[in-house]
């Protein structure tokens, strides 16, 4: 700890930290466009410059280390003029599209322009016309709105280990693109949407299916039903300015009914079902010498990742479809039959925290006879949009319960929304399958929290079990490389594409950061603490479904509807 001087005030700073860190702790708001918490600074945007006494030029605070006795000016005319010029230059070839832009109101560029008081266009740059890339089922890229901050490139490479995109070209032609400037749909992009979350502008957005859903809702020949993922009820409120970690499950169900969905189902139901199937699959693999460690299959970004980068480990992936797709399959078979509806006239919509789910629902494995099991996927953000368009006030509707037969859930299914939740739910049920007894304490602390790699080694009766929980595909690479190199102590690995799991998903509200992810996780674990039924095998409706329709876990029907196989995928990696 030592002192530095900031605008004439004494401020404490820590050895080794950057000027930006010290300033922000002290409550000085320093504008940045390229800074990413937790990653080394890149110093690309130059918005964060300050004056340091004795230095000939302004210094970028994001990458400049503090030193004892240093004297800084953060709001001198020189600093303010430089920041404003940087911003104005960035805006010189930016379209004036705020009125039509999906990011408007949440855009860092727009916000900075207001905060720094830019009121007119000073530089008239030659606007480069570039086509949007609309090839992907999940991600839309509009290069004209890109300020080349590099955050998407970094998250894709450094957090996700995918590197689907990079800087291409040079000078005024430089842009962010895929290898050979191909469409995102044929690139190695796994559709995770993490790049959308870090983008400061509207250059990246999800492909929206809001209009299609609205059209389906007003088509009298269609029965439109909806499912919502475990992580959505604890994040939707943020779309309406409510503080992170607020659960609005019942209100959301009521709001979805007001919008016009005939039935509202809870994907946590099929999360419980997944535990029955996947738990049985794990026990089967352990007993029969199947491929271990078994890898989870709920997260579609991760599935595309392993198809591209580790195809030799595909036999280790659980054959279970994701909870979204299990629900979709049940809706278009069991439920359609029960309601005497033609599956082709059911429109099955799902609300997901995820952009990769949009890709997943269109996979050829996910339907039968040309009818998809899930027709449209809306992200949490798009649901916010839909509620706004329909004028449904989430705050004033009375909470309602989801519909039978796929509305009941246990808290084990609900915690699927946090990294570690699938594993915790699976361990709770596997314990019973392997030992015949319930666990004494259901809370498994080592599987909780925001660490990218978590491990659990425990004894189940005779059996030593090793489990790992991974979130963020860059972390998945680390663990998979160990497995490939012969690591043998792991039986089961949960892998989620997004850091922190679905609560940090690429379809979650703009502004997602580690603190918010933490609050959302806590909201899920609060539900787990408060409710009585906390193990998937005690979901009564799941049991009924087995009695009336499926038979038994891994049975004939399950095999056809709830399981699938994935294959090596050729893309430019």
């Amino acid at each position: 700890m030592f002192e530095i001087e900031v605008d004439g005030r004494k401020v404490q700073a820590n050895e080794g930290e950057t000027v930006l860190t010290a300033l922000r702790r002290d409550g000085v708001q320093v504008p940045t466009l390229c800074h990413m918490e937790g990653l080394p600074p890149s110093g690309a945007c130059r918005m964060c410059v300050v004056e340091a006494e004795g230095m000939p030029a302004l210094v970028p605070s994001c990458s400049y280390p503090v030193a004892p006795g240093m004297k800084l000016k953060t709001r001198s005319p020189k600093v303010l003029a430089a920041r404003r010029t940087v911003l104005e230059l960035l805006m010189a070839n930016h379209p004036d599209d705020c009125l039509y832009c999906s990011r408007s109101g949440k855009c860092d560029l727009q916000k900075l322009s207001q905060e720094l008081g830019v009121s007119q266009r000073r530089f008239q740059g030659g606007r480069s016309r570039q086509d949007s890339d609309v090839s992907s089922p999940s991600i839309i890229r509009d290069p004209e709105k890109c300020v080349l901050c590099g955050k998407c490139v970094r998250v894709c490479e450094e957090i996700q280990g995918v590197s689907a995109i990079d800087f291409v070209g040079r000078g005024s032609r430089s842009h962010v693109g895929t290898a050979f400037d191909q469409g995102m749909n044929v690139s190695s992009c796994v559709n995770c949407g993490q790049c959308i979350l870090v983008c400061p502008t509207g250059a990246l957005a999800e492909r929206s299916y809001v209009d299609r859903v609205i059209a389906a809702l007003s088509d009298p020949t269609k029965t439109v039903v909806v499912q919502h993922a475990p992580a959505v009820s604890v994040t939707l409120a943020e779309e309406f300015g409510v503080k992170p970690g607020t659960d609005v499950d019942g209100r959301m169900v009521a709001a979805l009914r007001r919008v016009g969905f005939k039935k509202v189902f809870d994907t946590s139901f099929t999360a419980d079902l997944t535990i029955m199937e996947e738990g049985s699959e794990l026990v089967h693999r352990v007993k029969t010498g199947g491929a271990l460690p078994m890898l989870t299959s709920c997260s579609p970004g991760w599935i595309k990742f392993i198809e591209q980068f580790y195809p030799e480990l595909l036999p280790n992936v659980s054959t279970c479809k994701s909870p979204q797709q299990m629900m979709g399959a049940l809706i278009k078979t069991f439920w359609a039959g029960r309601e005497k509806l033609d599956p082709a006239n059911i429109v099955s919509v799902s609300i997901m925290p995820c952009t990769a789910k949009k890709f997943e629902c269109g996979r050829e494995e996910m339907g039968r006879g040309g009818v998809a099991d899930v027709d449209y996927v809306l992200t949490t953000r798009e649901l916010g949009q839909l509620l706004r368009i329909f004028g449904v006030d989430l705050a004033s509707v009375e909470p309602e319960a989801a519909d039978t037969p796929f509305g009941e859930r246990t808290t084990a299914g609900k915690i699927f929304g946090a990294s570690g939740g699938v594993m915790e739910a699976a361990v709770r049920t596997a314990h019973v399958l392997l030992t015949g007894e319930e666990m004494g304490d259901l809370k498994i602390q080592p599987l909780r929290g925001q660490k990218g790699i978590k491990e659990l080694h425990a004894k189940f009766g005779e059996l030593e079990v090793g489990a790992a929980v991974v979130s963020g595909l860059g972390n998945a690479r680390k663990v998979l490389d160990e497995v490939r190199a012969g690591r043998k102590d792991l039986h089961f690995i949960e892998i989620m594409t997004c850091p922190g799991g679905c609560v940090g998903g690429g379809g979650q509200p703009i502004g997602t950061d580690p603190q918010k992810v933490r609050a959302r996780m806590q909201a899920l674990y609060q539900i787990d603490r408060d409710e009585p039924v906390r193990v998937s095998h005690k979901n009564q409706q799941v049991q009924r479904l087995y009695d009336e329709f499926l038979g038994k876990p891994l049975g004939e029907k399950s095999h056809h509807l709830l399981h699938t196989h994935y294959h090596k995928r050729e893309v430019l990696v």
Partner: protein
Amino acid sequence: MGTATAETKKGAEGAEAIRAILEAHPGAGRDALIPILQEVQEQQGFLSKEAVVQIGRHLKLPASKIYGVATFYNQFRFQPKGKYHFMLCRGTACHVKGSQRLLASIVKLLSLQPGQTSRDRLFSLEVVACMGACGLAPVVSVNGEFYAKVTPRKLAEMIQECRQKELANASN
């Protein structure tokens, strides 16, 4: 069918040649990327998708990164050269002598952007920083043969000449 087999054979030979180049750089890292790209382009005439993936595997670099680096430099092309390969100099001397105008007209005449090859593989266009023939500015070369003090009009004639040669070949 015959063409497909020929293509496959060519692909396999290409991969083999690239393998030989990569083997000459054992244990190479990122810093070997540019020389390897140059050698591969020298050998193959351009950088194909297959080549980039193969190089990436050797250097443990993603294809997007290699493409990004390669597009930073003017020297790399991603399509095979055309039968008539036009190189246009954009060095200082040529610039002063009007190469900007030449570039605009050749882009129009050939309907090609720098780095591209026409669909019929007849023409390709490349822009270079300096050909070292500043006394002849502005310079254009076709398949290595230099043309001095080129004007847009002369350029049109040069292209016309190539087309006529092709027509004559075709009727023979």
